[in-house]
């Protein structure tokens, strides 16, 4: 299983700790209180509060008119979301497992992403699709994928991938306020991760990477729960006197190229860790961006670590081999730094 290291210190001094799931819940509740146009639609989002219990309590506060239990119709609810968003509402569509996004692709890729452009800027689709990613839950091939690369590829979409409770709350609030369709990926293995989250209102802008741990020898760019894996790896690397700088992109679209490039220029070595499939995935874009702009500063090729190119196997004996772990990241980092 992916290591779930405790999160790094958040930017301000904070005493309160809540889970990733609570952070999501709070963000939605606050946005729904703030803006009556915000509503949630999805399967078992009502009384059940989703199978992950992430939305528990929302229906009690906001009622079944704003927390809508839907039929098992992923394409349909996404389509309804698009139409509602175009006409003055701000829907948050809940797609239980990121794997089911495959059913929504036409509504997301051909409709939501393109309507603003196709209408010459007149119509807009302020919709959030909240969904999950991540393996190692023994859920097999159709409930374990990390498909964010597919959406990062499509113009008109924004893609957010929080890695801590703090980021989850701040990014989700930004997503709800954004006038563009946002695909918001939550690693289901992180829901119980605890971390500091202030009581006060805050949002986190899209397109601003976060240096989760500063370092000097190697840049490790990571996404979602791989940030936690990278942080765990950094801790081990520190023991071997390799100082790793961990950068969380937070949003793959928009991508904060500058922060990545600057770090790579500084350290001269870069790695990208992501739980999506490595081939034609997010690591390829990020590695290319770094390799392009930091070319003359790099001491070694940018190393990519993504998921193995296999449908996620059920057997624990196999599944754990398919995703990056602190150990594989440490190995790769050491090799990159010439320590093996």
């Amino acid at each position: 299983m992916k290591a779930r290291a405790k999160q790094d210190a958040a930017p301000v001094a904070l005493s309160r700790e809540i889970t990733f799931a609570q952070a999501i819940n709070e963000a939605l509740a606050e946005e729904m209180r703030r803006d009556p146009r915000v509503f949630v639609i999805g399967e078992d989002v009502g009384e059940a509060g989703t199978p992950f219990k992430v939305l528990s309590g929302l229906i009690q506060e906001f009622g079944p008119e704003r927390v809508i239990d839907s039929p098992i119709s992923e394409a349909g609810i996404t389509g309804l979301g698009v139409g509602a968003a175009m006409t003055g509402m701000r829907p948050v569509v809940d797609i239980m497992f990121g794997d089911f996004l495959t059913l929504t692709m036409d509504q997301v890729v051909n409709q939501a992403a393109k309507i603003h452009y196709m209408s010459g800027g007149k119509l807009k689709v302020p919709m959030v699709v909240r969904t999950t990613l991540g393996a190692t839950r023994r859920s097999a091939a159709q409930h374990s994928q990390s498909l964010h690369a597919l959406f990062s590829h499509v113009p008109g979409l924004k893609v957010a991938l929080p890695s801590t409770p703090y980021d989850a709350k701040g990014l989700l609030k930004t997503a709800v306020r954004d006038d563009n369709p946002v695909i918001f990926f939550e690693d289901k293995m992180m829901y119980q991760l605890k971390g500091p989250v202030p009581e006060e209102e805050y949002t986190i802008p899209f397109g601003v990477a976060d240096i989760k741990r500063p370092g000097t020898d190697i840049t490790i760019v990571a996404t979602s729960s791989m940030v936690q894996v990278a942080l765990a790896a950094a801790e081990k690397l520190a023991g071997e006197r390799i100082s790793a700088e961990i950068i969380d992109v937070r949003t793959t679209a928009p991508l904060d190229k500058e922060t990545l490039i600057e770090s790579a220029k500084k350290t001269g070595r870069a790695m990208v860790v992501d739980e999506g499939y490595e081939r034609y995935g997010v690591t390829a874009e990020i590695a290319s961006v770094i390799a392009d702009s930091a070319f003359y500063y790099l001491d070694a090729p940018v190393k990519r670590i993504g998921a193995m190119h296999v449908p996620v196997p059920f057997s624990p004996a196999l599944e754990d081999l398919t995703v990056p772990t602190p150990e594989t990241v440490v190995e790769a980092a050491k090799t990159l730094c010439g320590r093996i």
Partner: protein
Amino acid sequence: MKRSTKPKPKTGAPASATLGPEKLLRFYRQMVKIRLFEEQVNQLYTSAKMPGLAHLYIGQEAVAVGICEALRPDDYITSTHRGHGHCLAKGASADRMFAELLGKASGYCRGKGGSMHIADQDTGNLGANAIVGGSAGIATGAALSAKMRRSEQVSVCFFGEGALGQGLLYESMNMASLWKLPVIYVCENNLYNEYTHYRETTAGEFTTRAEAFGIPSESIDGQDIELVHTAALRLVERARQGKGPAFLTCNTYRFHGHHVGDIDRSYYRSKKEEEEWKNKRDPIELLAGRLVARKLVDTKALKELEEEGRREIEAGVAYALSAPYPDPGEVDQHVYT
């Protein structure tokens, strides 16, 4: 989702209204305008002045006009690849539509959408859609939004019978029925999915497709604008009163090819069939005949109305032809807000 409050009816003509002469003359004008618009589009294509292709609405005018005339300006429609008629009927103006079709900056979508994506928010047109059936969710979502906002708006989803092949339509109808959303599904059965007769692609009966979701469903002659309009008034009013969705099949025919380039059609439909529809089932001729028979107008007056329409269309196309293309710098604008 459970709904407790029912918005009480406020507007809309009573469904039983007999259609007065002004209304009928307005229908005539609107249908003629669509016809002339489309003929002009065809000419732009054959004279190589229009980029790409277009799907002409000629023959189906009574559907768009009959339905849209039953709507409030702020009611919504979603449209299809064959969408010029819906767009005009909902109130868009010809000049900016032509500009869009020619890819000009003053087009409704700044030339970015073209024929298959014309949208006009000001008249409630949420856009043509080049994905068959692709707007079923959007129209239903607009109805959900209207209900949530208690705006008493109604949403009309236009689609060809080919869209009955798309699963999204059924997913959407299920939710519309469950939540009694104010949406009317208008199926324009013009007999063909591109080059294939609907009987080869469509099992069972049309009306039952919606009834399966508890949605009342009717099938009517789509060439008779009085029939279409009367049905629309009734169903729209019903929806506005919070009584839920309806499904209306309008049986019609496209007089031209699937698109402007579809000239040799003999392998999929006969000249005879085409002639019969054109000669006996032209919605404009049918209405004209009635107007004259009922002595509401004479043929000369109709001719004048047509000339009036022609002038509008000609002015519109002239405007569009001389309008400038968007600036190259616009290419990456509007990807995000």
